[in-house]
């Protein structure tokens, strides 16, 4: 009885949370299937998702597709490279002793506390000096930086890469770089996946930096593109519907990334528990 009620209570809490988190998504999905974004509500009328998606993809000569490609470019590129950099950095901080190690780590930790928003304007002024504002690099380069990833990689490397293993590798004649890529990377894989996912989401959702940096519509990521459309609604009322559908379509890559990577993630979280 008590077990049963406790379980029921737990299920209730979970159910409420699920509804809370999924309702906006559901609303977006339903909104994306309606004609012309007409009418709010949580149920369908005139289901026409296919036609809507086609309309978004072809509007203004298919600029939305361009934005999606840009977003994937910024995101996958920055997340992959940023994860590698953060992983190497965290690994070095965990496994090598050198003067200034803690100082460097503390500076990186400080970096976690500085919100990206606060850096956008200074970065714009910097890139303007270098005549590189309004270019691909103006958004890509700052997106590589991931101090939280460094922190995570250090903690994980400290606990999951045994020093004895590194000693053995050295005795067998493996160089440090080779050891890192053949041995440590595999041991740290779950941390890499986590860092990659966080980084992916952060860059995909990044909005302020592109807003400040970019004026060329062909360089926009999808977030900025949709925002721009949304602000033109009073001149182009049909954009109301297209923004909804576009927002829905732009979720797809994130869902794919999560579904594809969660396998690795789970195995990593489980691995530590047997110890």
């Amino acid at each position, binding site marked *: 009885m008590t077990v049963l009620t406790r379980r029921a209570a737990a299920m209730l809490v979970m159910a409420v949370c699920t509804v809370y988190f999924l309702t906006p998504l559901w609303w977006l999905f339903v909104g994306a299937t309606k004609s012309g974004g007409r009418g709010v509500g949580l149920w369908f009328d005139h289901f026409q998702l296919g036609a809507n998606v086609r309309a978004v993809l072809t509007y203004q000569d298919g600029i939305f597709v361009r934005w999606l490609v840009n977003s994937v470019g910024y995101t996958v590129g920055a997340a992959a490279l940023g994860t590698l950099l953060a992983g190497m950095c965290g690994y070095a901080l965990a496994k090598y002793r050198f003067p200034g190690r803690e100082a460097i780590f503390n500076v990186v930790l400080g970096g976690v506390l500085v919100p990206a928003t606060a850096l956008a304007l200074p970065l714009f002024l910097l890139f303007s000096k270098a005549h590189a504002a309004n270019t691909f690099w103006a958004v890509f380069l700052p997106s590589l930086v991931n101090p939280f990833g460094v922190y995570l990689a250090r903690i994980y490397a400290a606990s999951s890469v045994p020093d004895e293993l590194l000693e053995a590798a050295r005795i067998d004649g493996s160089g440090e770089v080779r050891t890192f890529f053949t041995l440590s990377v595999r041991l740290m894989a779950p941390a890499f996946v986590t860092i990659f996912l966080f980084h992916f989401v952060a860059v995909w959702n990044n909005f302020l930096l592109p*807003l400040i940096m970019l*004026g060329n*519509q062909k360089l926009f990521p999808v977030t900025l593109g949709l925002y721009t459309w949304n602000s033109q609604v009073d001149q182009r009322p049909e954009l109301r519907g297209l923004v909804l559908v576009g927002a829905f379509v732009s979720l797809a890559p994130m869902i794919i990334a999560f579904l594809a990577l969660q396998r690795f993630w789970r195995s990593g979280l489980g691995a530590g528990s047997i110890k």
Partner: protein
Amino acid sequence: MRRSIAVVLLSTLALTACSSTDSSGAEKTAASCAPASGPVTLTFTSWVPDIQKVVDIWNKANPAIQVTVQTGPNGNGGTYQNFFNQLKAGNAPDLGQIEYDALPSFRVQDGLTDLAGCSDVTAAKDQFVDWTWNQVSFGEQGHVYAVPQDAGPMALFYRKDLFEKNNIKVPTTWQEYADAAVKVKAAGGYITNFSNSDINQFAGFAWQAGAHWFTNDGTNWTVDLTDPATTKVAGYWQDLIDKKLVSAVPPWTDEWNNAYNESKAWTWVSAVWGANSIATGAPKTSGKWAVAPMPQWNAGDQVAGNWGGSSTAVFKGSKHPYEAAKFALWLNTSSEALTELNKVANLYPAAKSGSALPALSEGVAFYGDQKIYDVFSTASGQVKPDFTWGPTMTQTYADASDGFKAAVSGQGTLLKALQDAQASTIQTLKSQSIPVKE
């Protein structure tokens, strides 16, 4: 990691760098306006959708003056802030779209090129509706800081069928409008929706009534959001709200569209671009609407308000003001550009010649084939020429609409909201070291 440190250090440097730059004093003389010797490339930032199509026409005909389009969200959505950042960084575009109510903020920050040195521009004065020229010259003789682009003269959209069916006279004065509101309520509708979160509509009402929210005597600004005209307008709408004769759903929402689509709201006193908002928001009511002049405060008057409109400005730092001004004039006076601007974004031209455009002289099916643009053309000539915007409108709007939202939900009044916005505006001007008289 080294990269992270570099970024932290560099950004600290950048922060100090930008705090140490001081703004130079405003120049009193107009910039020189000489043509360049060779081919020129200009950059132009605008959020008009598909502006590229308009610019393409120019680029094809002017190989020596090529214009590159940059775009972004609407002004208050981020593009104005970008302009200020770019002015600071020294890479502002040559030309930019700026709404009339934002021009003064660029003027006080000394971000605009005075085009009075370009004889083409000064000669074009008579091509524009008088009040739009005042918006870009701030009434200063011998100065002009932008070329007017579009305008938002206001009129009364009303449900002709419902007014006739219920035997209600189409109001010509605000008194008649209030009387009609009672009858409409009795017939089961609301005469209109009071725009509680978009204060620009109210500004248009105040403009019509003869308000002077801001004045500038050359050095000092005076803020008067509660002058007699504005107080009268605020009291009028407060009364309708108190008597529940108007609805107050947030504007530009589905709820708002539905109110019109389901015949719950019967009129809308709005700008010329509102014609398109109703047509797309309330498709079920096609053919049932008509447009009449804005109700007047005194019977027999002929005064209109304005809601919206923007200009094309040349930014300080542009190396080619002559060519930039030439393009801006073409964009806003030539019939090919005005036709295309009207087609891609429903812009209603500030140029007098605009009313002769074919698209603006035809009957509109949604309005029962009425030639509605004739009404707006007349209205545009009746807008009071001496209304000036302040240099911190973003803040003024935000504060006033906060108060309006509260007033509509029964806390405080519209007048109280304006009094508060008055105080906070003066505060903001002071904090930005803009001279203000109290």
